[in-house]
């Protein structure tokens, strides 16, 4: 694992749609790479731009805001 570059992606997922979708992906056993770290939010609209900038400036490889 350590030799190959594995990006760490931060995801802000809306509790009512994208997060539910991610749960459904689980129920449906859809397989995807384990690089995403999910923060559940009550709405994708609550993600302050400062949080995204903060994560990127500290070296995160990507940010997904899904809702």
């Amino acid at each position, binding site marked *: *694992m350590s030799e190959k570059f*594995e990006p*760490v992606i*931060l995801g*802000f997922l809306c*509790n009512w749609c994208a*997060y*539910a979708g*991610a*749960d459904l*992906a*689980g*129920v449906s*056993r*859809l*397989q*995807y*790479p*384990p690089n995403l*770290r*999910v*923060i*559940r*939010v*009550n*709405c994708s*609209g*609550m*993600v*302050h*731009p400062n*949080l995204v900038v*903060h*994560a990127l400036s*500290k*070296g*995160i490889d990507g940010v997904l805001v899904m809702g």
Partner: protein
Amino acid sequence: MDKCIACGLCAQKCPKKVDDDYNAGMSQRKAIYLKYSQTVPLKYAIDGEHCLYTAKGKCRACEKFCPTGAINFTDTGAVVTVNVGAVILAPGYQAFDPSGIAPYGYGRIPDVVTGLEYERLLSASGPNQGHLLRPSDHKEPKRIAWVQCVGSRCTHTGANGYCSTVCCMYAVKQAVVTAEHTHGDGLNQTIFFMDLRSHNKEFERYVESARSNGVRFIRSRPHTILPGKNNIGVRLAYVTEDGGRTEEDFDMAVLSVGLEAPPDALELAHKFGIDLDRYNFARTSSFTPVTTNRDGIYVCGAFQSPKAIPRSVTEASAAATEAAKALLPARGTLAREKTYPPERKTTGEELRLGVFVCSCGINIAGVVDVEAVADYARTLPHVVCVENNLFTCSTDTQVLIAARIEEFNLNRIVVAACTPRTHEPLFQDTLREAGLNAYLLEMANIRNQNAWVHQKDPAFATLKAKDQVRMAVAKVCRDYPLASMSVPVVQKALVIGGGVAGMTAALDLADQGYPTVLVEKSDKLGGAAWHLNTTWKCEDVRAWLGRLISRVDNHPSIQVLKNARLKSVSGSVGNFASDLEVGGNPMNVAYGIAVLATGGAEYQPEEYRFGQDPRVMTHHQFDAELRERAAMVQQAGSAVFIQCVGSREPGRMYCSRVCCTHSVMSAMRLKELNPDMRVFVLYRDMRTYGQREDLYTRARELGVIFIRFDLENKPEVYQEGAALRIKVMDPILGRPLRLEADYLVLASAIVPHDQQELTELFKCGVNPDGFLNEAHPKLRPVDLTVDGLFAAGLCHHPKPLDEAVSQAKAAVSRAGVILAKAAMQLDAIKSEVTAACDGCALCLDVCPYRAIKLEEYGDNGHARRRIVTDKALCKGCGLCEATCPKEGVTVHGFTHDQLKAQVDAVLEALG
């Protein structure tokens, strides 16, 4: 029973092993046992028949080892008398026993199992912990055959003539799950079927996806199952559709056994004085589908007819409505409020975290190294207690969590398990029971968003689970107690749509004392049911409809608004308000809940010369012919029905459910009018589910000819001289047939009305076919995705009248949960102003719920401005929080600090 802590020591020490009924005898349990690991209440029980002490008077090992003194050998059964005003019978079904079908070898060939046994073989709590192993040699089977209609759709002695309704889909599901569970080359899942009955919502798409993922479907009923070499594996002998005799080897065979009335059906019927049908299912009418012939006795589920979970749950709610109506004068008299111990003050305490890591049987532990995750959690700051549980959601674990909270004086809890969307309320309740505020809890979703989606990568999944736990720990450290508030409820209902479903819902709401406004867009009540002559049970629809309309029109608590349209919707569950336009005049209405029953329509075909030849008509048109011009219809020499017109095709990939039965009913009516008439039904799969199968059988006895066709090879309709002809390929003869029709009846699809305007107003969703989406197909089948909204009738999915009625009654039951109380508890996740707010008002513009206002206040003599949130309107979406440039407003549970802590916890993964 109160003393049992379900530690399991008794079962561990018990010397007597017994075949485990729950796992269909495929594994063993002890004589003291749990029926299954999620049983409620979670208490061990002694099987008196097998216990060495109760049977032979010696042993008592369990009593010796029980740490709480919970074993009581003198406990005996007791007769308890309860006085009730209504009874709901829901005894379920029994599975058909295939032992009597000798050619299938069940009981003789170890690798022939029933569908229910196979379900256990696949299950994580099954005999092999979810690893699929066949019974004979405990090897993983690669080639598996499912044989449908075992004990169903069969008139031989011992079998049942009806269709068991659920077996097609359980077989397809098992085949799909099997494909997920098995690995390697040479995999094969084959389903042998007669008609594939995937008629419920989203089922058609599911079958198509199974097909495209390699599940093989063979239209044949195998006549014999032979043992493989050394009685390992099986050989299936069957005849293909073209008449060819074939034998094929499989590693095992699954018999899709049907559902039968419960074994005590006759006794129940006798005891309660209710009528059964010829198959011992409870007899009900289409118009009162959960009401027996005896007042106050209601039925639901498979005891009424074989059915799957969504309809069983719907009927359960419908039966609850009937019982609630019967018990109206006594409503609320025995209600008790759930009380919790006083909340412990945790402010000022040092952080003390408990982390509970769930194995979820093998659902999580099969992929994620849960022990490593637990060990990792122990290294995190403030964590003082870590446990790994087989099922963290089980009753005994709730007791354990509460005990740990007390023992370690925990004040923050992390549960690493499944999704908070389903299980957060359960654990919040556990915290409250233990005296902690419910919001001092975080969940790490290591099942749905980890173990289930990274099955092939256990090492990385474990790493991710650790990250998830670290994120949850970081957040929970910043959680603080929240309090919820309550708001008054408008105890009135709005029903949209004046068809059967809408009127039924309005009547049941009004009968329970809730003033109801019924909105109908046309100038007439009744909807699509006006087009129907009879139900499948031969009941006269139009006469009943007339009585229903008259009851609605004359009900003092129902206000009927015709030519009415909804113009706006504001508010939320418990407190909605709408502007309406009624016959061109504006009016407004306030209501606590709404039932959407906007109905559906018959698809107007563009195929088969519809609209070009007057002899080609839809079912609605043909019903009118039968009603008004039966004497003319009687003269016809031939009639042809074409099924699936506009259904089960790309663009409309669903079954319209009622059309097979409708065609069979009409075909039988024609044979009744004129036994010499040649009547043909051209079909893809006959879907006369449940006891409707009897009609299909009867139609064939009357001489109706059924010819199957494929989607790729549809019938051709053309004119030859004056004659209307249909060319269809007969798959059994293997050659095309030419039929002549005096009437060509197109069994055309049911399509939903355009609901875009309404769904936009209510912000609820529709599926790809335009039918309203329920909140959950099994758990909440009549709730919409927006709180306080419910669906009934054709707008949800095509369904026959009896199902529309039970769905409407179910919607009323669900609505009653909200309407019965004058006040409703609100969620605590709301936005609130912070000290940093300077009243710039940027957030006012973005708030979609208009929940934020400006207020002025005095601060040491200075007039200042700040925002204030209306808690009843606020949904906690946090657009304000993301907009504010100075953290002047925040959403409880999702504060900037809490979100940032999680981001920082993720950043730690970068090393």
